[in-house]
């Protein structure tokens, strides 16, 4: 497990930690007070953008719309990052922007401006399945199916909290800031969401369709 701190932008990207996860409580360097600005955000784009894209894609359920949402998120972030108070944790802030953009797009879609809906199942979104071993492919399929089922069963806010916690590794306090909740409510919401996830996991392991 390695977490590579980068100058100015201390992110913990999935590519850094592989399959393992660095608990937020162990990421002491991330809670330091680095100075974030436009150039640091640009330097960290390659790490942060795939995570933001996956986040908005999960919220919107539409890959094409997710690309638009990712672009809009970073455009807004670049315009406002220089005005952030020193010490503002940039990753939760960018996810907060992404969530607002997703909500706006969902409302616009609800008004009928955008009616295109992505019906492609998650397991067809796998990029390079041929290069993986059969065992790994099976595990991938398990992960894709279980998570997709769980996300389908969750209300929007609880889904966002689960994704921020388990997929993007935010601390409960950071999730509370993004969602505008109390810390206690955040923990309860994530706990309920994880119950649903475990239910789907047990169903998958039990061979239920």
């Amino acid at each position, binding site marked *: 497990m390695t977490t590579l701190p980068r100058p100015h932008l201390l992110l913990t990207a*999935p590519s850094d*930690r*592989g*399959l*393992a*996860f660095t*608990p937020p*409580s162990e990421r002491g360097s991330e809670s330091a007070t680095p100075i974030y600005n436009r150039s640091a955000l*640009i330097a960290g*784009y*390659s790490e942060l*953008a*795939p*995570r933001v*894209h*996956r986040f908005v*894609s999960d919220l919107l359920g539409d*890959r*094409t719309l*997710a*690309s638009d949402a*990712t*672009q809009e998120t*970073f*455009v807004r972030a*670049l*315009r406002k990052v220089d005005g952030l108070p020193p010490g503002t944790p940039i990753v939760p802030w960018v996810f907060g922007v992404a969530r607002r953009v997703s909500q706006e797009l969902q409302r616009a879609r609800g008004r009928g401006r955008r009616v295109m809906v992505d019906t492609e199942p*998650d397991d067809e*979104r*796998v*990029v*390079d*399945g041929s290069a993986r071993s059969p065992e790994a492919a099976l*595990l*991938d399929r*398990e*992960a*894709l199916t*279980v*998570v997709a089922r769980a996300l389908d069963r969750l209300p929007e806010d609880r889904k966002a909290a689960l*994704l921020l*916690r*388990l*997929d993007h*590794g935010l601390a409960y306090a950071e999730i509370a800031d993004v969602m505008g909740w109390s810390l206690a409510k955040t923990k309860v919401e994530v706990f309920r969401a*994880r119950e649903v*996830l*475990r239910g789907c*996991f047990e169903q998958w392991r039990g061979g239920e369709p």
Partner: protein
Amino acid sequence: MRPFDVADEMDESRDRELFARRAQALGEAGVPPLGDILRAAARPEPRAARGPSDHAWVQLLGGAGLAAAVMLGAVRSLPSAAPAHAASVAAAVDAGAGSTEPAGGASWSTFDDPAACTMEPAETECANSCGLSSEACASEGLQAADPPLACENDPRLSE
């Protein structure tokens, strides 16, 4: 770190592995290139992106200003109460002298004092009421005809 937090982190590790595998499987397809982001960020922010609140505020303030102007105009067009009342009584008396007969048949022409023309209606009634003595009217500072013209035909006087 409290024991509960340690247990919670261990408990979450399986769930996180699930999401990490999924993230690896999904890859980075669909992520817009940085160049597109920078070009879009360099463009001036469109006015519509500021949200509908600006437009709503302008409408609200415009409406409030219009309402205030209408109210001001309405207040200015209203005549003030006291002078108008006196003027209307005087005008009614002047216009109706010799032609408008009050109740009881008395004529407004029986008034010698021009000040009576500006009397309040109650005082005018006093001066022209049948059966009201001259003393009673005088005590009120009014002038009454003797005998009152209005009372010439009053059945109560003939009794």
